[in-house]
């Protein structure tokens, strides 16, 4: 078992393994950096050292994303909406639900109200700007909640499999068999409609999609060699789930979440349109809802907040598309 014994075995007759290191030594080549033996021991490494270092995955994805004009437009428009939502109280410090002028002013009729007033004399522009706040709040918060819970459930189900998976999949299926919007209406009707309850209700109906997606990703990645390697190094389950598998499962989840925000905004609008939104807060959906009866005489009351919804949702979908192109490994050549 001593090393001399090993050395003696090197000279066995019939041993066909040529010690390649001997032939590989570059005569007289002085390494420019690193320890002197590095090139001798690893000529494969030497060739890599001089090669141009490829850009990392993340930067490549960013480049693809921002080379896409649609994604760029989506990002720009979403940025504008976010800026507007943040600045709305600066432009219009008064309550957007208070009556400020003559009713039924058409857009452009009175310079004080560029987008006109509604049947009660409320400023439409102020309503749209303040409405973006509730739309974004509900969209982002509901998505964050649904995403967190969905990823947790999907990760646990996909990673552990077995009876844990069976139970969690049944749970997901229970939610999926119920028509989601009906469930949403029921949930909001039971709880008192407010921005918080609407957000929670939307999160409750949106997590199963994420859970299914995450579970599918985890089931595939669980079998990869690097997960086995991680287990062989003594990593615990939580570390393998969150540090090893989840980062690799993220691209499709990120893409889905951008569309989830759009869906949540639409759902909030639909609820407000039906009068199930928070009555004390103006939202795009509630503006359409109150303008609905006047659609033949004053169509701008439904069209203007409608356009705000259309463009915001479109922007989010374009971002989702762009992220899909940027993060989907099928489209990346250099990996």
């Amino acid at each position, binding site marked *: 078992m001593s090393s001399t014994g090993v050395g003696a075995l090197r000279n066995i007759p019939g041993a066909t393994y040529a010690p390649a290191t001997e032939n*590989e030594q570059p005569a007289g080549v002085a390494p420019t950096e690193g320890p002197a033996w590095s090139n001798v021991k690893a000529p494969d490494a030497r060739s*890599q050292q001089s090669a141009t270092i490829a850009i990392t995955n993340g930067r490549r994805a960013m480049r693809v994303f921002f080379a896409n004009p649609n994604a760029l437009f989506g990002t720009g428009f979403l940025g504008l909406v976010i800026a507007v939502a943040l600045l709305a109280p600066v432009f219009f410090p008064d309550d957007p639900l208070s009556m400020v002028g003559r009713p039924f002013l058409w857009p452009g009729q009175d310079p004080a109200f560029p987008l006109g007033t509604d049947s009660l004399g409320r400023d439409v522009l102020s309503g749209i700007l303040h409405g973006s706040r509730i739309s974004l709040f509900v969209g982002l918060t509901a998505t964050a909640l649904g995403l967190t819970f969905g990823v947790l459930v999907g990760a646990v189900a996909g990673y552990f499999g077995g009876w844990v998976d069976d139970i969690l999949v049944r749970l997901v299926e229970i939610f999926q068999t119920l028509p989601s919007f009906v469930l949403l209406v029921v949930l909001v009707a039971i709880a008192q409609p407010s921005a918080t309850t609407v957000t929670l209700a939307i999160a409750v109906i949106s997590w199963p999609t994420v859970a299914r997606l995450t579970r599918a990703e985890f089931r595939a990645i669980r079998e990869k060699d690097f997960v086995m390697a991680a287990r062989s190094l*003594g990593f615990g389950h939580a570390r393998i789930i969150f540090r090893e598998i989840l980062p690799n499962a993220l691209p499709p989840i990120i893409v889905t979440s951008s569309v989830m925000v759009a869906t949540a905004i639409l759902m909030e609008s639909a609820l407000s349109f039906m009068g199930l939104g928070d009555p004390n807060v103006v939202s795009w959906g509630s503006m359409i809802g109150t303008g609905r009866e006047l659609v033949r005489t004053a169509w701008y009351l439904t069209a203007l907040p409608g356009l705000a919804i259309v463009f915001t949702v479109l922007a989010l979908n374009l971002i989702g598309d762009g992220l899909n192109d940027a993060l989907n490994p099928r489209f990346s050549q250099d990996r």
Partner: protein
Amino acid sequence: MAPLLRVENLTIGFPRAEPVRNLSFEVAQGETLAIVGESGSGKSLTALALMQLLPRAARVTSGRITFGDRDLLALDAREMRRLRGREIAMIFQEPMTSLNPVMTIGGQIGEVLKVHERLSGKAARARAIELLQLVRIPGADKRVDDYPHQLSGGMRQRVMIAMAVACRPKLLIADEPTTALDVTIQAQVLDLLDTLRRELQMAVVLITHDLGVVAQWADRVVVMYAGRKVEQALPADLFKDPLHPYTRGLLAASPRLKNDFHYRNGALTEIPGSIVSAVGEAGCPFRPRCAQARASCGHHIPPLTAPAPDRLVACPFTSSIKAVPDALALSH
């Protein structure tokens, strides 16, 4: 001195098959034990059983695995996790897919140290650079922030080795560590493993199907066939005087530089049939492929006998085979 690892009568069962049967071997401290056999002989399953990482359907149905003074099969999941990576580590066949593609190599090496030695992020990074230098990666302080896709196969296998030896394990299981690499890189990686074995005083279980690797790097060899040990010897003895017909076939089927590298004087010999030939049959598992097979071979499985010190063979007719040299392999 008590062996570091002792495997006794290990049997691994799937619901419908027993890919490893009654396998016993020992690994001494600081020794390299090679396990040789063709695909499907149960080598990799044995390795996974040592790590307690068998696939879900497989189970150790009988036998004992003793590591130091601990019975591995009796440890619970938490104790086993603490052992893995710290005292027993493993490197895998495929360096291209065995690293997490979205984490830097320094981060991955540091992760091991954070888990087992509770190092802080900064200390783990410093140790990761040291380990990269230990496995001869040039420019380690820059390479530490590289992602796996920026490295070649040989470099990735070096990173895998760095992760495996990060906590100075007593036993390193290398499951065909060089199969996926270029021939020139193979020798370097094996050389590195051997150097580390001596520097870190760890034992190595080297699983391979490459007899050249065995000849050069192993202290002892176990030849496996169909889940059983058919021969055990020192490499010098094995190459000079193979006893089991299967070992003789394996050696005859290896290309030799000295002889006829381009096979001008005839094709490389092969062992007829395949490893599945023996499924469901009684008796010696090699019998359907063995030129020396006799009627009695079908009755029972030949037991391991010790024809010489340090040697074991599972064939009762080795003396008669020796009397007719090359009768098996070179009959074509």
